[in-house]
């Protein structure tokens, strides 16, 4: 076995254990530097793995311990997982760099160590969700993500953040309860927990037509639980407050990454456990499609009415998550590719927008209403640029990441059956709605506002924002290669 195959296990353990080392340091700044350093290492390792796997066109399973497949825990990695790990670690580093000042200001000095621990545990749990092939392991790491994400919200000292954190926790617990019951039901009728063995067992059950009701109900329960956790439209009530009241880095990570972690599990359920054909016969994919379609429109309409910049961005996250559901619900390979593209594009774009908005809010002395942000982009030019590019990307300006994802989705919709017209209509309407709230916002921040100090130049923040911009443009222009990579990854998933 090549040495590089150890990378998934090694990166998960490295991240989790680096989080556990932090309490030993008494100097506060070390924590942040340590976790960023570890993330750089993980990003580099994932890049190496990605190059190797996509070059060889293979995927592999890695047994955790001395015991083979159905007995021990298993990790599974192919090009798609490596790509996701790479993008996630990049987003994590850049968000933490761009939001570093806000962390120092918003989080009390004696709590910054704990904050770093929790962020790193969150990242570790996301990595584990990407790589794991075992449903129960996935559940455990979902819970870690729930606990730590909730604390990422509450780390900022304000009454509002505690209120939104508790709502977040309530919904998280509801979601994980449903997921756990779904896993238990599935275990009850198949006796397996590993995805690969589950797939066989489920196929057998479908062929012999036994236990079909529990099977469908378990799929429903898990889908419902995961869509509550990823704030898909009717269940998004907790999202805007939680994401808006957190500190900048937390908002960027929560919106960009945490929601996607749950969707990756959903993707695994669809592809590895139930299989697309079962979903089609039980109309599950139509359900996903309709959820996505309504979410695209309603969440965008809700975003229109927001007077706070971060609330608006948070609602827009819910709308963008719906695109992923739409892609999953199309039920075709192209739809799945589009969903994965949207996962990557939205991870990059949304965290960039949050970071840019954080810089602008800082430049306006903490005001987060639109009227206070008038002219903020002149005070924090790179932050304003990041917000502008991100907004335009979500509206669908060509050559940016958001456009490529939408294009992918539109191509996928053309091949679908009855879904073509509604999907295209939804895409168009939601793009118009996106433009309706992002364009006025962009005009407002570049407009003439009250005079203020320019935000002092910090390499940490400006560098991170510039890299964000670069990544976004790369993801938008390198449409072909990225799409091929995803396609290869999905074939090997």
């Amino acid at each position, binding site marked *: 076995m090549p040495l590089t195959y150890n990378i998934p296990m090694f990166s998960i353990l490295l991240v989790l254990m680096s989080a556990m080392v932090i309490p030993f340091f008494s100097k506060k700044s070390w924590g942040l530097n340590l976790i960023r350093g570890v993330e750089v290492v993980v990003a580099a390792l994932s890049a190496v793995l990605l190059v190797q796997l996509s070059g060889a066109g293979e995927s592999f399973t890695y047994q955790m311990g001395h015991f083979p497949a159905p007995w021990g825990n298993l990790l599974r990695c192919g090009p798609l997982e490596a790509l996701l790990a790479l993008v996630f670690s990049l987003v994590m580093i850049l968000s933490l760099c761009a939001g570093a000042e806000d962390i120092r200001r918003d989080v009390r000095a004696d709590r910054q160590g704990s904050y770093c621990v929790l962020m790193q545990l969150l990242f570790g749990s996301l990595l584990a969700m990407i790589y794991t092939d075992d449903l*129960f392991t996935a559940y455990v790491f979902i819970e870690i993500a729930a606990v730590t994400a909730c604390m990422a919200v509450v780390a900022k000292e304000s009454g509002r953040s505690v209120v939104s954190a508790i709502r977040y926790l309530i919904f998280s617990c509801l979601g994980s*309860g449903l997921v756990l019951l779904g896993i238990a039901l599935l275990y009850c009728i198949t006796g397996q927990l590993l995805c690969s063995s589950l797939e066989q067992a489920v196929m057998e059950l479908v062929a012999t037509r036994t236990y079909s009701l529990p099977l469908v109900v378990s799929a429903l329960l898990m889908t419902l639980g995961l869509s509550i956790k990823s704030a898909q439209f009717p269940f998004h009530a907790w999202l805007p407050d939680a994401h808006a009241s957190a500190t900048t880095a937390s908002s960027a990570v929560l919106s960009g990454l945490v929601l996607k972690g749950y969707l990756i599990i959903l993707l695994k359920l669809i592809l590895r456990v139930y299989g697309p054909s079962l979903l089609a016969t039980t109309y599950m994919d139509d359900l996903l499609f309709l959820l996505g379609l309504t979410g695209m429109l309603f969440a965008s309409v809700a975003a229109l009415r927001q007077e706070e910049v971060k609330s608006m961005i948070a609602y827009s996250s819910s709308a963008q998550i719906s695109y992923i559901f739409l892609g999953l619900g199309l039920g075709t390979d192209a739809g799945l590719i589009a969903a994965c593209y949207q996962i990557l594009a939205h991870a990059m774009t949304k965290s960039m927008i949050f970071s840019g908005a954080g810089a602008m809010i800082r430049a306006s002395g903490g005001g987060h209403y639109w009227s206070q942000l008038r002219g903020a982009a002149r005070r924090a030019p790179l932050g304003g640029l990041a917000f502008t590019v991100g907004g335009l990307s979500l509206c669908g300006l060509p050559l940016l990441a958001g456009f490529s994802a939408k294009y992918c989705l539109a191509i996928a919709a053309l091949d679908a059956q009855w879904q073509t017209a509604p999907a295209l209509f939804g895409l168009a309407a939601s793009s118009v709605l996106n433009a309706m709230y992002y364009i006025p916002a962009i005009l407002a921040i570049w407009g003439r506002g009250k005079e203020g100090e320019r935000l002092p130049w910090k390499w940490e923040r400006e560098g991170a924002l510039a890299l964000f911009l670069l990544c976004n443009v790369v993801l938008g222009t390198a449409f072909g290669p990225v799409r091929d990579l995803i396609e290869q990854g999905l074939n090997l998933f």
Partner: protein
Amino acid sequence: MLETILQQRYYITAVLLFSIGFVTLFLHPNLIKKIIGLNLMDTAVFLFLASMGYIEGGAAPIVEEGAKASQYINPVPGGLVLTGIVVAVSTTALFLALTIRLYRQYHSVNLDVILMLAWEGKAED
């Protein structure tokens, strides 16, 4: 029918408890009750799992050398439940800590009242 009900008694209790706990966590305005609901929900799933592992006539899985698997109950659900219990207690502790923090600020454990106070506070900023 009645025989099946009697046979599946554990599963039936578990799903009843799950629905009670789920709704309490979802809709009860009192935060303490919500946390109790969370615990009910989790223990319900654990009961479901634990009863799934039971085999009539099986012994606890303290194995002896050369024994047949059929002498014992299935140990897998037991292990899962052990993991789950600890996860549940962690979430509960976090939830309770958040409740205490909220109470310090709003002097209430009723989520509706808290939300109302928070909204008023926001409007007056």
